[in-house]
């Protein structure tokens, strides 16, 4: 009987995948830029970025005071996130599509949805979400994360039709925990959809801090698992936001697939007007973000370039205030829709039962 022969093979463990995550910043807190990274922007375009951020902030402050006076309902402020929202939205072309959340008023304003309609919506009137025919921005998604696959689907449809457009989906850090976020990224990778995922990582999902949302070091790296690039950017640096978004949209339109952009920023206000953030985060933490203000650093930059003066600022503030006054006036002048409006859009055609129900009015 032959002796049992044991052979020993050498099977070394090897690393078969590894990854790294890039972080992009162009403009620092003091208003200095890295020329080599600065996107090509004319003086006029730089002013437009700045002025739109100022408008978004002024609008936001007004909405908060209208809420306090009981003139609109619960409101989700954007303070601190103006660069992320305005910088990415102004990188869009008119034909691109956008899928926002409930905290994207800066995006709506930048793409040209009338501010009075935004107030109308938060005042409890659905007609404020009726988007103009030539704008391709979806209505606010209040369900967190579940709108992200829609962006992928729209991108797949554009690819199918051969339309050279890009699509942006916005969502928060909290949104990355929903299953639909992962399904959306997976679809985008598999179908090489021309979509850009912009995660506004504002460090909080109501009271849950970013590190309790995911054990991963960055949100950007989640793209790696789905086969495409994720990049982290300084979300309070509008030039970085603009550049990363432009590049990602160009890549999408070239047919090179999706990108995840983690825009690292901070929610300076309460989650909404129904929240009290002092229950779960410290004043010190909020104050540490004050010098990183997204508007302040552009002002410092413009000042160095001779694009900013006290007079310019005064003019701008007067113009902005007038625009927000006008939005408030228009929103409040809108006639009440009346109960029949509830029935008008449930289906393309009113049903028999609805017609009967309408007799109550």
């Amino acid at each position, binding site marked *: 009987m032959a002796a049992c022969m044991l052979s020993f093979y050498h099977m070394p463990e090897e690393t078969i995948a590894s990854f790294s995550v890039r972080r992009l910043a162009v403009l620092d807190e003091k208003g200095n830029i890295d020329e080599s990274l600065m996107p090509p922007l004319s003086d006029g375009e730089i002013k437009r970025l700045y002025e739109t951020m100022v408008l978004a902030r002024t609008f936001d402050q007004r909405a908060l005071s209208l809420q306090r006076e009981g003139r609109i309902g*619960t409101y989700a402020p954007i303070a601190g996130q103006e660069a992320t929202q305005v910088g990415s939205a102004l990188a869009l072309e008119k034909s691109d599509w956008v899928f926002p959340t409930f905290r994207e008023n800066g995006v709506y304003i930048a793409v040209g949805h009338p501010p009075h309609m935004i107030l109308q919506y938060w005042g409890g009137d*659905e007609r404020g979400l009726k988007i103009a025919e030539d704008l391709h921005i979806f209505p606010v998604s*209040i369900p*967190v994360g579940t709108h992200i696959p829609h962006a992928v689907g729209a991108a797949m449809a554009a690819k199918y039709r051969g339309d050279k457009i890009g699509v942006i989906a916005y969502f928060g850090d909290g949104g990355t925990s*929903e299953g639909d976020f992962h399904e959306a990224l997976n679809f985008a990778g598999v179908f090489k959809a021309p979509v850009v995922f912009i995660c506004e990582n504002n460090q909080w999902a109501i009271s849950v801090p970013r590190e309790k*949302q995911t054990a991963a070091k960055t949100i950007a790296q989640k793209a790696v698992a789905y086969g495409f690039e994720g990049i982290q950017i300084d979300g309070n640096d509008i030039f970085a936001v603009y550049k990363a978004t432009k590049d990602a949209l160009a890549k999408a339109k070239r047919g090179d697939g999706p990108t995840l952009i983690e825009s690292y920023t901070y929610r300076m206000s309460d989650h909404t007007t129904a929240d009290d953030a002092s229950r779960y985060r410290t004043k010190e933490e909020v104050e540490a973000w004050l010098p990183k203000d997204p508007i302040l650093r552009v002002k410092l930059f413009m000042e160095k370039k001779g694009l900013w003066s006290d007079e310019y600022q005064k003019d701008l503030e007067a113009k902005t205030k007038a625009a927000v006054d006008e939005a408030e006036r228009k929103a409040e002048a809108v006639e009440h829709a009346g109960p029949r409006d*509830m029935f008008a859009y449930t289906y393309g055609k009113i049903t028999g039962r609805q017609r009967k129900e309408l007799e109550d009015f």
Partner: protein
Amino acid sequence: MPQLNMVQAINLALREEMERDGDVVVLGEDVGKNGGVFRITEGLQTQFGPERVMDTPLAESGIVGASIGMAAYGLKPVAEIQFLGFIYPAVDQISNHAARLRSRSRGRYTCPLVIRTPYGAGIRAPEHHSESCEAIFCHMPGIKVVMPSSPYYAKGLLLSSIRDPDPVIFLESTRLYRLMKEDVPEGEYVVPLEQARVVQEGKDVTVISWGFMLHRTLQAVEGFDAEVIDLMTLNPFDEETVYKSVRKTGRVVIVCEAPKTGSFASELSASLAEEMMLHLKAPIARVASYDVVLPLPKLEDYYMPGTERIRKALAEAMKY
């Protein structure tokens, strides 16, 4: 005896049951440090620690799915879904797993979990914060659906729900949270599931309701000799109490907050038509919300049944 509102009563129920039973754990979005967006779980994390009162990632399917695993392992999880309108990502977990685990394993595994979630319109909330889709869960054999109408009953029903061997959806009206206070005993008392209560006796017409709508109903019945029933558990519902009343009055009005088509009022109405037809003097009436997408605050008062609509249905029934 302390006078408590519904928020405090539910908080007390959770606290006392956690003190009694180390297997009860609480999980959900913002339930720990923040004490829940309605403060229902306030103070629980401080008292019982973050291992027992867990702030979860923002994922409803994850919350319910993990709760099912915990329940099967032997714990008694009480999961919070922040608003009923956000429960939909978890519906697969509820319907395909929680509802069926006992049946699919022929009793080897069970799923004693509670999903608490605020529901209902009328608080001027943003979109998706006002749903009343209880009927969906009544259409899942294996799931019990409980809807308390006051602080006292909320506490007693929640204790029964936590101790129940099967999964329970426990729906709390946001409108009722701070609407009223009543005597809520400290310590143990339970209000049994699957039992309705006669809130007010009457001879002419039976009015059935649950949750917030019970209070509208009680206002509306003034001037009618109405017997008012608070259903409390929707599925399985207390047929005996309901039929006994209908046998007496011969008239029924059902008041619910959900849109009429496919609502739980429809199930009650169908059951009454099957069982009580020969006792009825008048057609069964459902007073429900309209069959439209739930409107934003500017229109929500038109949407929900008001006392006028309930009174109209009562007057109509009394014509027979």
